[in-house]
């Protein structure tokens, strides 16, 4: 019997996690909707299905909390899978001793987020574990949506010259969390945690045929998501460092903590691949949304399949290399 154990690295989103997923999950469940690990499963009957668990600390951060995240995270996965979210389940695992008042605040937040995203909490479960059995509270949401007839995510449609777009500034959620952990505040430091409904609607309203793929850059940030998107696709991509939108407070934060925003999680953003004809209209539509000033075109698709490069601010072209694991504050 193997004495191997699961380590933090296996949840870190890098090589170790890939190995775990391949060996333990795909090996057992990889036939069917799970193949290719899409954001959401496409089920017969025009349904889209997705799930995610939420363990973040601190549980409350500028711009949101674990409750809001739990709703928006799954709602956004459903949108990215080409669905319109309708219902969520809500499961709670609560550590003995957890304050009822905080539980109430988290659930109020779940309710508010569900209302804002237009979804109903349809079913759920609550478990309490002994002290030490969990870090405060863990949430899981699973969501069901209805396939949106206007578009389907389809990477086989990728062509050189297609544009890579994003609906706002990058790295905001991850940096807001780091900021909260290390006593950094300020009115500019706010997570972008939000439902993607308005951005998806805005894009599909003006150029539904132009949209080929969308993915929310959560763990690993825009860099990781673009790398994943191109892997196994018929095209490559080049991102332009000078065009990555970054709000001033986050530019300052990245300078203070030595963090690269390109690889930091966003929770209210979608990286969108659209053909050149529709890109301008989509950007204009996003810029009309509240908080949309930072929507931008950040790159385009290239000839070399699977290869992602980064054009530096000072010229020069290098390979995009996604760092393993979470970015942490550096002082050196």
């Amino acid at each position, binding site marked *: 019997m193997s004495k191997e154990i699961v380590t933090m690295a296996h949840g870190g989103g890098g090589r170790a996690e890939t190995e775990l997923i391949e060996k333990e999950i795909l090996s057992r469940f990889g036939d069917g909707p799970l193949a290719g690990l899409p954001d959401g499963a496409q089920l017969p009957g025009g349904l889209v299905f997705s799930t995610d668990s939420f363990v973040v600390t601190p549980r409350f951060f500028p711009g949101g909390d674990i409750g809001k995240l739990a709703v928006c995270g799954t709602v956004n996965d459903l949108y990215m899978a080409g669905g319109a979210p309708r219902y969520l389940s809500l499961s709670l695992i609560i550590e003995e001793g957890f304050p009822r008042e905080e539980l109430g605040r988290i659930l109020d937040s779940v309710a508010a987020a569900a209302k804002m995203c237009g979804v109903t909490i349809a079913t759920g479960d609550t478990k309490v574990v002994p002290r030490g059995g969990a870090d405060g509270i863990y949430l899981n949401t699973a969501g069901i949506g209805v396939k949106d007839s206007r578009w389907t995510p389809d990477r086989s449609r990728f062509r050189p010259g297609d544009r890579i777009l994003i609906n706002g500034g990058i790295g905001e959620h991850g940096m807001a969390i780091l900021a909260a952990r*290390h*006593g*950094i505040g300020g009115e*500019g*430091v706010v997570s972008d945690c939000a439902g993607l409904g308005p951005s998806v609607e805005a894009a599909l309203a003006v150029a539904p045929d132009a949209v080929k793929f969308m993915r929310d850059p959560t763990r690993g940030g825009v860099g990781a998501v673009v790398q994943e998107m191109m892997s196994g696709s018929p095209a490559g991509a080049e991102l332009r460092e000078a065009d990555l939108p970054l709000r001033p407070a986050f530019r*300052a934060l990245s300078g*203070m*903590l*030595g963090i690269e925003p390109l690889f930091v999680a966003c929770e209210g953003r979608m990286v969108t691949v659209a053909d050149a004809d529709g890109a301008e209209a989509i950007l204009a539509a996003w810029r009309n949304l509240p908080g949309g000033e930072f929507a931008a075109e950040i790159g385009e698709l290239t000839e070399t399949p699977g290869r992602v490069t980064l054009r530096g601010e000072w010229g020069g072209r290098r390979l995009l290399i996604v760092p393993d694991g979470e970015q942490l504050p550096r002082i*050196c």
Partner: protein
Amino acid sequence: MCVALPMKIIELQPESHGKVEYDGMERRVNLRLLKECGIGDYVLVHAGFAIEKVDRDKAVEQLRLLQELKQEFS
């Protein structure tokens, strides 16, 4: 080494602390490594400590010298 950022002191606090700000980002910082400083001063912040004052006049002068250099060349 030395990830550090110039930030402006916006508040002085007891026991050699202060609040610094830059572009809408704020943090409490320890000022004990500086002999004296006041609200409105810019300081270089490293690991939560202000390690030196930033002389903005000199910063402006540096930019001017650079401009001159570029003009000379062209």
